[in-house]
């Protein structure tokens, strides 16, 4: 078990290191002069002249070679310093620290929404296998997974915010303002989680030990709770971990539409402004969050599965 964890953690660290390197070099070999972009973004077109360009290059160490800059960046990154945003002229870590809680708030709400809807839906579908409820839920899943989230967001704004005036259009000024973005964000996850929950339930229900449980004379409810759900849920935990990736990715788009002040919006702005340190910071934070969540998921999975506890290997 400990061995398994150490191996997983080392793998995550390795992957994150490669991620950061890759991002750094990808972003830094970008065509177009960074200094020009910075001046343009901060002071407008008129400020772009040789003298200012030199000053900017000096300030952000842009005259050094890419490798030297990289070494410097790695050194700083370890202390939580991701450099200074060209656009906001503030430390990247400060900006991300300001916005991250909002993304977490949105992501967690969306996650809860989707779990609360998808898990019961999947469970009931499986228990009603091939009956009406199952067919309706399958169609529901097919349809929800076919609508683009950003469009659903716009339709929700038009209907619920503009026409019915139930929720605010954007921002996060009132507690209700989280409802529409979180709902949109959870939609994509609901489809996959429902499918997987249903499949996992059906798989367990066809196992021999369920036959044995019936042969013992257990009540249907006891069989469902003690044997079916207990075995059907662990695989879903891994699925949920992967789904968080969709939430993080979706947040980039959804925050943009609802003007939700999170990391996603920051990321898009950074891309449009060619704000390199900010892009790198955002990518790293998202990759780190994703990796950390999946690591936690793996640990939970290992903790509840005696087979891994026993052999140190995940049966995939």
């Amino acid at each position, binding site marked *: 078990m400990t061995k398994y964890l150490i191996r997983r953690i080392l*793998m995550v660290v*390795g*992957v*994150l290191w*490669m*991620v950061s390197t*890759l*991002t750094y070099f*990808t*972003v830094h*070999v*970008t*065509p177009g002069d960074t200094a020009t972009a910075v001046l343009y973004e901060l002071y407008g077109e008129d400020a772009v002249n040789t003298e200012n360009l030199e000053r900017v290059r000096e300030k952000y160490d842009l005259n050094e070679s890419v490798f030297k800059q990289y070494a410097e960046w790695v050194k700083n990154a370890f202390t939580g310093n991701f450099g200074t945003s060209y656009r906001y002229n503030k430390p990247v870590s400060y900006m991300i620290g300001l916005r991250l809680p909002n993304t977490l708030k949105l992501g967690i709400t969306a996650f809860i929404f989707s779990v609360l809807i998808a898990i019961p839906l999947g469970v009931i579908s499986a228990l009603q296998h091939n009956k009406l409820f199952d*067919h309706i839920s399958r169609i529901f899943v*097919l*349809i929800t*997974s*076919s*609508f*683009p*989230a*950003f*469009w*659903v967001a*716009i*339709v929700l*704004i*038009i209907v619920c915010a*503009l026409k019915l005036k139930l929720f605010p259009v954007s921002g996060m000024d009132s507690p209700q303002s989280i409802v529409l973005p979180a709902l949109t964000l959870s939609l994509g996850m609901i489809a*996959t989680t429902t*499918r*997987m929950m*249903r*499949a996992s339930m059906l*798989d367990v229900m066809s196992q021999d030990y369920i036959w044995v449980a019936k042969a013992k004379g257990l009540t249907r409810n006891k069989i469902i709770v003690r044997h079916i759900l207990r075995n059907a849920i662990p695989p879903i935990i*891994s*699925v949920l971990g*992967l789904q968080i*990736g*969709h939430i*993080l*990715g*979706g947040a*980039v*788009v959804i925050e*943009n*539409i609802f003007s939700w002040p999170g990391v996603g919006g920051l*990321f*898009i702005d950074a*891309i*449009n402004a*060619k704000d390199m340190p900010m*892009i790198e910071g955002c*990518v790293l934070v*998202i*990759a780190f969050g*994703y*990796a950390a969540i999946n690591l936690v998921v793996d640990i939970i999975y290992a903790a509840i599965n005696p087979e891994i506890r026993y052999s140190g290997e995940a049966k995939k």
Partner: protein
Amino acid sequence: MKRVNRKNIILYVGIVLTAILVAVAILAPYIMPYDPTKMEISQKFIKPCAAHILGTDHLGRDILSRIILGSRISLMTSVTAIFISAFIGTMLGIISGYLGGAVDTIIMRIVDVMLAFPAIVFALALSTFLGKGQTNLLIAICCVQWTRYARVARGETIMFRDSEYIQAARAIGNSKTQIIKNYVFPAVISKIVILISLDIGTIILYCASLSFLGLGAQPPSPDWGVMISEGKEYMQYAPWVAIAPGIAIAFSALAFNMLGDGLRDLLDPRMKETVRTE
């Protein structure tokens, strides 16, 4: 003797919807009622009516015509992206699985890195490097998508590599390339085909999201994502501008999702829902 039953209905509906979609894309120039690029400011924001079934946008262009022409962009991009990434992924996956060792480690570590991001974040980061435009959007999608096929192809290859069937092929003197070409590839390809049919819907949505964010085709191209992005500005007084292209996207994604689901049930019931997790 397979009769039509409830299971197959999804497949048949999928085939019909996909056929409609493809027909619209091919016949686009003949069936669009107006020139989709023709601007008439005097005609802007006309509500859906008999003359303009889906209304007009902020530049007075007919939305229906734009959607019809846009189907070409959507289909071309997604289908091209999926075939390129399936090709690259399958090749690398087979090589990785068959050769093992250092080659396998390198390829799989690259896959791990790719999977460390939510796909859209990776594509966005890549776009800072590549710049905007339809071709770059295509490249960005391929860069992310190939990993999926590589993993499946690798897994299948490893399963086949040690089978008696391949051992026999080796014993009768086939070279590595011959074995891969004549034995491994045909065995792996069926899974990949199912995966492709399941993925097209997702890729359509994915292309749409990226062009919505401004990474793909640029205005005035009648790309569905771009149209929604433009329409978003006017959603208060002209909601139809943003709503109509979204329904087109959903229609095509649904068509392919149903086709993929139906095909999977037909060809490989064992695969069930599992492949979707990756």
